[in-house]
């Protein structure tokens, strides 16, 4: 055993340590490392390409997305608080990089102020809201002003699969669900 331990080890420690020295060392199967390396370079290259694409077009895409969402939500929510339970038939999408926070701005428009609206965000496996690690559902009460209400959601992809984020705004017994497709690239 290392000299560094002599001052705090006792006989019992040494006996256990000797037993643990005999514990088998795991070894990979013959071609595991080669396969892992090939997968890493292929997957790593793919993610880098996607990142470069996002760098090149990111601003335009993000701006377009926000504008689209503003337009979409304004159109679809102009009858709030008499909200229509129907869900938008077209789904906006965003591509985010794995494990890199990405802020998505949701815009809710209401024709009048609402004091006690409830917003619930449902997340697919592998997509998280920053500050709420591991939570698939986040709910909070909020008030809406008359007009546009901006909700920035900082999303983090923790797996490469993506999915659909559902944001449901409820007031009294009425509600509207907004959908956002999140791809990870």
């Amino acid at each position, binding site marked *: 055993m290392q000299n*560094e331990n002599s001052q705090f080890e006792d006989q019992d420690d040494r006996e256990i*340590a000797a037993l643990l020295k005999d514990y088998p060392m795991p070894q990979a199967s013959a071609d595991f490392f080669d396969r892992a*390396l090939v997968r890493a*370079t292929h997957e790593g290259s793919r993610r880098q390409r996607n990142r470069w694409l996002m760098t090149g077009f990111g601003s335009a895409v993000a701006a377009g997305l926000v504008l689209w969402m503003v337009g979409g939500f304004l159109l679809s929510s102009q009858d709030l608080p008499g909200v229509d339970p129907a869900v938008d038939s077209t789904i906006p999408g965003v591509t985010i990089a794995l494990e890199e926070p990405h802020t998505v701005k949701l815009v809710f428009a209401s024709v009048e102020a609402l004091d006690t609206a409830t917003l619930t965000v449902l997340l697919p496996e592998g997509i998280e809201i920053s500050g709420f690690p591991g939570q698939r559902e986040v709910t909070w009460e909020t008030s809406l002003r008359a007009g546009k209400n901006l909700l920035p959601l900082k999303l983090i992809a923790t797996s490469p699969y993506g999915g659909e984020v559902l944001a449901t705004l409820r007031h009294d017994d009425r509600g509207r669900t907004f959908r956002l497709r999140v791809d990870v690239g």
Partner: protein
Amino acid sequence: MVNSTDTAFEKLVRPHFERLYRLAWRLTSQKAEAEDLFQELLIKAYGKLDDLVRIDAPGPWLARMMYNLFIDERRRHARRRLHTVNEGDLAGQGLDDLPGTDSPDWNNERRERIRTLHAALLRLSDEHRLIVLLHDTEGYKLDEIHDLTGVPIGTVKSRLHRARARLREILGENGTFSADPSC
């Protein structure tokens, strides 16, 4: 097709494969999870090749990255799933995946002793099991464990001592070790 970037990446990481693989196993205690963790580390490290080429000691840097990946994944897992495990079902779990345990030079007594040790290790807390395996089995020094986990050296020492004591206590329960209850 292999390009120069891939070649450079391989040259930097391959020397550390064996040690990283063992670390993945010690962290997860399961072959499939260890290999997933190892794979995810490589993918993430490939994306940070620019950083990797500037680092003097890639081994510890990669090990830290693996440890952080593991901790992140474990936190997510703990929050998403609640499950119970019958400790009796753990005996021998994963041991057959370990190399050499079916070797002719492993007599029954030794195999049984290791099987009992393996089951006892699985009853330790994750923190205790990791530290005792890294230090006593893998030969990590205390400061290396500190660098890897961020746990202060004094805490590493006390955890190591407590982990051994707990292990001795567990082994004493089934007569494998003549444990002194005062330990």
